[in-house]
């Protein structure tokens, strides 16, 4: 009986506290209210089992692009001067993800000055979304002091993304976090597919094909929201579902075997994921349409 009371108290108190989170900057069709489920992340609590949904971070995606031989193309990134045109919470969330992906892209390719511009854009939107604490003065000082140190810069930027993601989820604003993630993922896909227009390699095609995993996870995450059928969440889900349709027949290859080499577990090679010309063109065009709709 006492246990039940503790659990009840825990659920009730979580709901009360989350209502005390920061006010969203501007109301639109996106609910920015507390989900009231007492979750700590995009964990959707199912009684006693916490289910997490995770997609590759912008930093990992940018790192994979670079390793696949993609060239840096500054003209592909979102215009920093657009930052003040995003007035609704949903646009701010999507473009926080997009600028965050651009920030990771510029940083991984060691374009320090652009990294600073995109940090400023992300900070601006984080402020409007009430997440400025992720970009506090200490962090900005560290960024400034380490701007010549690529590895330090990447670590600090990773910390910022973690702070924003965690803050939003802790405060029951995980639908905003989901839009941020969706924006960041779309931007990564947009950058990868646009690069193939001028530098098409099997490695890049493989990385784009493999995004099917992330897309499935992103859709699974967004499907957990009660208001997934409304407003910007519904619109973004429709965009992602349109991409999922194009990915439907993409061959993800085959899993290999598990072996041990020098005490390290190796998931050994099977067949790699591939994209044919038609699939690549269709995904590239759709990703560009969606992304341009978000940034304009």
């Amino acid at each position, binding site marked *: 009986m006492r246990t039940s009371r503790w659990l009840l108290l825990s659920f009730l108190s979580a709901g009360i506290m989350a209502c005390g989170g920061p006010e969203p900057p501007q109301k639109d069709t996106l609910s920015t209210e507390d989900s009231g489920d*007492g979750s*700590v992340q995009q964990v959707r609590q199912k009684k006693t089992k916490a289910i997490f949904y995770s997609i590759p*971070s912008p930093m990992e995606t940018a790192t994979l692009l670079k390793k696949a031989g993609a060239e840096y193309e500054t003209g592909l990134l979102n215009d920093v001067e657009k930052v003040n045109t995003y007035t609704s919470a949903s646009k701010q969330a999507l473009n926080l993800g997009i600028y965050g992906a651009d920030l990771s892209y510029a940083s991984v390719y060691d374009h320090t000055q652009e990294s600073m511009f995109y940090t400023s854009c992300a900070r601006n939107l984080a402020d409007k979304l009430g997440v400025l604490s992720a970009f506090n003065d200490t962090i900005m000082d560290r960024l400034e002091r380490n701007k010549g140190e690529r590895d330090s810069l990447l*670590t600090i930027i990773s910390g910022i993304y973690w702070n924003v993601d965690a803050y939003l989820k802790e405060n029951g604003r995980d639908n905003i976090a989901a839009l941020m993630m969706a924006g960041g993922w779309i931007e990564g896909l947009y950058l990868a597919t646009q690069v193939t227009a001028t530098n098409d390699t099997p490695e890049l095609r493989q990385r784009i094909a493999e995004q099917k995993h992330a897309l499935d996870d992103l859709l699974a995450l967004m499907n957990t929201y009660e208001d997934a059928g409304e407003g910007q969440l519904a619109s973004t889900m429709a965009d992602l579902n349109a991409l999922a349709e194009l990915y439907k027949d993409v061959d993800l290859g*085959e899993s290999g075997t598990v072996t041990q080499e020098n005490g390290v*577990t190796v*998931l050994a090679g099977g067949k790699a994921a591939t994209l044919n010309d038609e699939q690549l063109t269709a995904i590239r065009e759709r990703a560009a349409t969606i992304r341009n709709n978000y940034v304009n």
Partner: protein
Amino acid sequence: MIPVRTLLPALLLTAGAMISGDASAQCRSFAKNKCLPGLAPYTFNETFNAAQLAPGEEAEVDLTFFSGQDYRLMVCAHPILGEVNWKVIDQNGQVVFESLADEPKSHFDLQVQTTQQLTVQVWVPGDGSGSDMVHVGCVAILMGFK
């Protein structure tokens, strides 16, 4: 004057609310300060997969591992929970790694030659004390790459 008996539930709720809010922030702080350093020299993948769990509860996440990369998986639990059990399963249901509470391992390093998704399952053993008091603690699932 309002009787204490009337005020008590409200006071308890308020205290509980403060504890819960603090617990969320503490979970982030715990994961950041106590767990993240263990990922070095891998680059943290920036995703906050952490929750407050009690004995008997579980957590699960599907993670994508890309070919050509090395990864470190780490499950980090608050000491109040003791050691937790966790395992990594591939898409064929094969257990790739298992850490039981009586044979704890802090992390799992792997190299990936073919991109694939793996499922990480974590469960917190019951404390076996028979006590009515529920101990809730932070459990974080972290991934680093290089």
